[in-house]
């Protein structure tokens, strides 16, 4: 077994970047990816990156996707690093998510929700059969898609926003009351998580968590390492107008809008306090972009963590520390990657200990005599 010296690192690093760039540019089409193509044609990929990066900037996300050749973990990471350099400019007022301009809204609890169910852009009922007609798509046909869709649509007589399904249930007395504490929400970008943490810290952490990690944790609960058994009261996707006070008039003005996904789940009531009326329990999930699996997973975990925070965790998905410290993509991928770095010094130290203990095992209880210099 040999050990390789680490000399000439600089040339190797430069070479590695050029090698990766070479593979990116080896595309025979000779056409570099346009950022708007990534942002729109790969919109769900862009959605993942903005939510896991924790920064709503679809164009930067598209750039990151291009630069890191489609690696969502790396692209989200690049957005996070970008945000480290930007100052916090101002505080925005709390936005009511009820003002969302929906493009999709469904409920699995009731058929007839006020305002109606609209499936919107979804693959839920699409057959997973590959569409070979997309392989060599004709640009003219591609450009005609939008015209055809908008031309064929029925007259839209819909309101701008919709009431929440949960609010109707709450009106009937089936849900717990809204939170009494309306304190300052926890800012995970400025404060480290020191346990126990508030629910707002948990929500913020999960909102920028890695989708697959959240899904795995939530799935463990759904499968049996937990007891949430949720019903999706409402799932919505849409554009949230962000209102801020106009600098001159102080009246609310629209600063822009943010695509987001939101999910509320209802779970079976708990015995809990025998004196109190039994109520459904609730979970909430939300994230930037269009990412339904993430929002649903987060809602289930929110419900599981509420139980863990109150009664102590019985399952991993109910343990705030276990869930919240292991779902961040930037943290976990960084650490997994770091094992690729040289560990020559520590491995040498390992060898020293192993050889010493082997020596002792061969000649038990005799002084080997390698005293330290101390």
């Amino acid at each position, binding site marked *: 077994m040999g050990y390789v010296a680490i000399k000439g690192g600089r040339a190797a690093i430069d070479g590695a970047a050029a090698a990766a760039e070479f593979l990116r540019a080896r595309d025979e089409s000779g056409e570099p990816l346009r950022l708007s193509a990534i942002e729109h044609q790969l919109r769900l990929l862009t959605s993942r990156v903005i939510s896991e990066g924790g*920064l*709503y*900037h679809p164009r930067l996300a598209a750039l990151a996707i291009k630069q890191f050749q489609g690696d969502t973990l790396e692209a989200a990471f690049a957005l996070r690093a970008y*945000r480290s350099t*930007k*100052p*916090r400019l*101002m*505080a*925005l007022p*709390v*936005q*009511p*998510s009820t003002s969302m301009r*929906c493009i*999709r809204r469904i409920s699995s609890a009731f*058929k*007839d929700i006020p305002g*109606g169910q*609209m*499936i*919107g*852009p*979804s693959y839920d009922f699409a057959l997973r059969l590959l569409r070979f007609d997309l392989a060599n798509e004709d640009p003219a046909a591609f450009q005609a898609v939008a015209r055809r*869709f*908008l031309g064929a*649509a*029925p*007259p*839209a*007589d819909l309101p701008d926003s919709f009431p929440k399904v*949960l609010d109707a249930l709450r009106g009937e007395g089936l849900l*717990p009351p809204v*939170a009494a504490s309306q304190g300052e*929400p*926890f800012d995970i*970008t400025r404060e480290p998580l020191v346990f126990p943490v508030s629910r*707002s810290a948990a*929500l*913020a952490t999960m*909102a920028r968590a890695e989708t697959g990690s959240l899904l795995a944790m939530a799935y463990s609960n759904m499968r049996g390492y937990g007891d949430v058994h949720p019903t999706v009261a*409402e799932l919505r996707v*849409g*554009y*949230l107008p*962000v209102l*801020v006070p*106009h*600098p*001159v008039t102080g*009246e*609310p*003005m*629209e*600063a*822009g809008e943010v695509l987001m996904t939101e999910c509320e789940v209802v779970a079976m009531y708990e015995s809990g306090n025998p004196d109190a009326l039994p109520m459904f329990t*609730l979970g909430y999930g*939300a*994230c*930037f972009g269009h990412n339904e699996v993430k929002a649903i997973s987060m809602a289930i975990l929110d419900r599981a963590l509420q139980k863990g925070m109150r009664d102590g965790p019985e399952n991993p998905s109910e343990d705030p520390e276990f869930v919240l410290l292991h779902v961040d993509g930037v943290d976990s991928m960084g650490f997994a990657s770091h094992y690729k770095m040289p560990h020559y010094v520590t491995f040498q130290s390992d060898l020293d200990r192993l050889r010493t203990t082997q020596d002792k095992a061969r000649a038990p209880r005799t002084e080997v005599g390698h005293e330290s210099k101390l």
Partner: protein
Amino acid sequence: MTIPRRNWAAALAVLPAQDLVSAAEAIAATCLVSDLVLPQSGLALLTLRDGAFHEPFHLGEVPVARAQVVLRAPDGREAGGGAVLLDDRSNIARAVAILDGALAGRLPGWETAAALVARGSAARAQSLAEYQHLLASTRVDFSLLGQPGEDDDA
């Protein structure tokens, strides 16, 4: 002008940067523009109330650019203009603030600003119509489905 001031900035922000900057420069050529705060860009936390317990939490960060100016016309009239945009271009925020001020105070150049707002509003209306199309064309009509029992995925 039928478009309320609260929607001007969002309408203007969808237009090409060059159109906004040249219109603002034309206004600044006749009116004296002073910055009340330095035009800045940075980040802001987007805070929502969660849908289950209405507890505030941070969904993530958004880029913000803001500017606030005072315009003084040659005839001595003054008007304040401001803008906060979900954007990372402080020069666009400043241009929008100038247009906002000119339009609000009917200062020289306000007609250009009004035309730009109208143009941007039309583009915005198109986007909103698209959202509605997405909903209207995918509305589930339960009177046609009419299954009596509740299905369960368990």
